[in-house]
């Protein structure tokens, strides 16, 4: 007679694996990657390739040195590499990209224990450190499609121009005079900016793919973008064009869809996600409208990342049927 053996729970398994999820994220990033290489030319491809290769290499080497099981196969380093490249201007010298990968993978991710252990988003931290290390190289934007012919034309990003507009009294007039790209160009990404953030259309395609595959929940991106929209509606005194401009410019879509939703550094349950999204949106808007810097998405995400443990504490759901504990209070009193 055969023995009936029962393995330990859980008995119902999902076929989801880390590698599978990361593969989905990579697929969702592909449209924006293709568009950015098409817009910004060969050097953009070089930045992208350098970032991915160096991230994977750093992951492999640091796991080897720390004598831990190798996690290169889960593709998370590839995702970090792509997102890091998306956060950089296409003209950045390649050695700076390598420094960025080093910060992201070795310092932020592996020193804290590897995948699932980092307390802030690796790519964003790398971007912020590069930004404060090489402010000039990190804010040299070029017009898309122009660089492909070889001559780089550096221009101010639309967001930098917008930052000035919020401070002007007659905003409608200022919007017309500021010589900004048209809304259609903003949507298609024909504007200066970081490699991956320019093309809103490509990012939205990736967003829809992630939603269909149920890789991310829409709560964080929607509350994040929604908060910015509401804030800008008030700041812009009801000017809708200004609001749309704010939503399409800078790294808002890239940050809200791909970086704020990072599993490791965002809250688990619904309430926490809503708090997280609103917090990100508020900090972003405050920096954009009142701050010295034109862009605040990366800072808002890193600040909220740090708050995540506290958000989780506040939003831990009550187990079914549990009653408010009174015993513990009596216990300490006695």
């Amino acid at each position, binding site marked *: 007679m055969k023995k009936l053996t029962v393995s330990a729970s859980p008995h119902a398994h999902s076929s989801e694996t880390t590698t599978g999820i990361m593969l989905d994220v990579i697929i969702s990033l592909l449209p924006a990657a293709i568009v950015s290489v098409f817009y910004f030319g060969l050097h953009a491809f070089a930045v992208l390739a350098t970032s991915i290769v160096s991230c994977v290499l750093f992951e492999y080497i640091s796991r080897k040195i720390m004598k831990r099981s190798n996690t290169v196969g889960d593709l998370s380093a590839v995702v970090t590499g792509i997102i890091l490249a998306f956060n950089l201007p296409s003209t950045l010298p390649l050695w700076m990209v390598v420094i960025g990968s080093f910060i992201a993978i070795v310092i932020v991710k592996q020193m804290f224990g590897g995948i699932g252990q980092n307390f802030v988003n690796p790519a964003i931290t790398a971007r912020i450190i590069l930004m*404060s290390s*090489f402010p000039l190289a990190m804010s040299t934007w070029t017009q898309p499609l122009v660089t492909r012919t070889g001559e780089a034309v550096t221009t101010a990003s639309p967001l930098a121009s917008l930052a000035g507009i919020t401070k002007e009294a007659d905003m409608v007039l200022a919007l017309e005079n500021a010589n900004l790209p048209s809304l259609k160009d903003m949507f298609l990404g024909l504007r200066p900016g970081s490699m991956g953030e320019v093309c809103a259309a490509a990012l939205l395609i990736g967003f829809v793919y992630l939603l269909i595959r149920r890789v991310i929940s829409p709560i964080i991106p929607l509350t994040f973008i929604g908060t910015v929209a509401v804030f800008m509606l008030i700041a812009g005194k009801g000017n809708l064009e200004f609001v749309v401009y704010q939503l399409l410019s800078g790294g808002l879509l890239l940050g809200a869809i791909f970086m704020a939703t990072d599993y490791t550094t965002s809250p688990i349950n619904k309430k926490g996600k809503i708090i997280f999204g609103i917090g990100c949106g508020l900090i972003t808007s405050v920096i954009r409208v009142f701050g010295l810097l034109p862009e605040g998405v990366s800072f808002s995400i890193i600040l909220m990342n740090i708050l995540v443990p506290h958000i989780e504490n506040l939003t831990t759901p009550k187990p079914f049927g549990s009653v408010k504990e009174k015993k513990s209070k009596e216990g300490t009193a006695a």
Partner: protein
Amino acid sequence: MAEKKSLGKEFTKGLVAENPVLRLVLGTCPTLAVSTSVSSAIGMGLAATIVLICSNIVISALRKVIPSKVRIPAYIVVIASFVTIIQLIVKAFVPALDSALGVYLPLIVVNCIILGRAEAFASKNAVLASAVDGLGMGVGFTAALFLMATVREVLGAGTFMVGINDLLSVFSDTTFNGFTIPFLSENPMIIFVLAPGGFFVFGIMIALSNMLAEKKGKKRAELRGCEACPMASTCSMNGSCEEKDKEVSE
């Protein structure tokens, strides 16, 4: 300190095993503020070392005269007089260093390394041992500052020891004034001379020195007694807290 150690040990413990900055995490404020350039780090280290040795000698010599209830004010008076002397000397002979260190030079008065050594060591040990202890701690402080400043200046400004001439010209008439590193000086990582870079370097160096000390066979919690305690300078329990800790844990 019940057991007697040799003078050599009193000196070397300040270098790595009980390095004031990296192992005891004392004197953090001047460390982070001054370590942006190697020359000011050396200047700060030297000034603090001289004050440390002198104050240790005087406090150790007076240890039987100072009433224990007012010992902290007494220490401060002793330390402050030496700091004033050093400050006047620096102002007179190395004015450039004085302006580079700014408020951190007079702040040596409340530097917790110096106050900590006075309370934890000089007030309980003989004069010679206290002097050697001060020298060891001072050298350890200077070495830690030098290492941190090297990393921060090389990566953050692309130079090494620039401005050292102000310090050297007091002793000899060299024209040596540091190096400029070709590639790094054109592309400095500015973050390293800013506050966040200081904290990064500080954290990584503490981790490395812990690793070094642990490799030598000493576990992390091996440091015992008042020297290991950051509150030693303000504490009046004179080591009796350790027995309390034992009672609690048992």
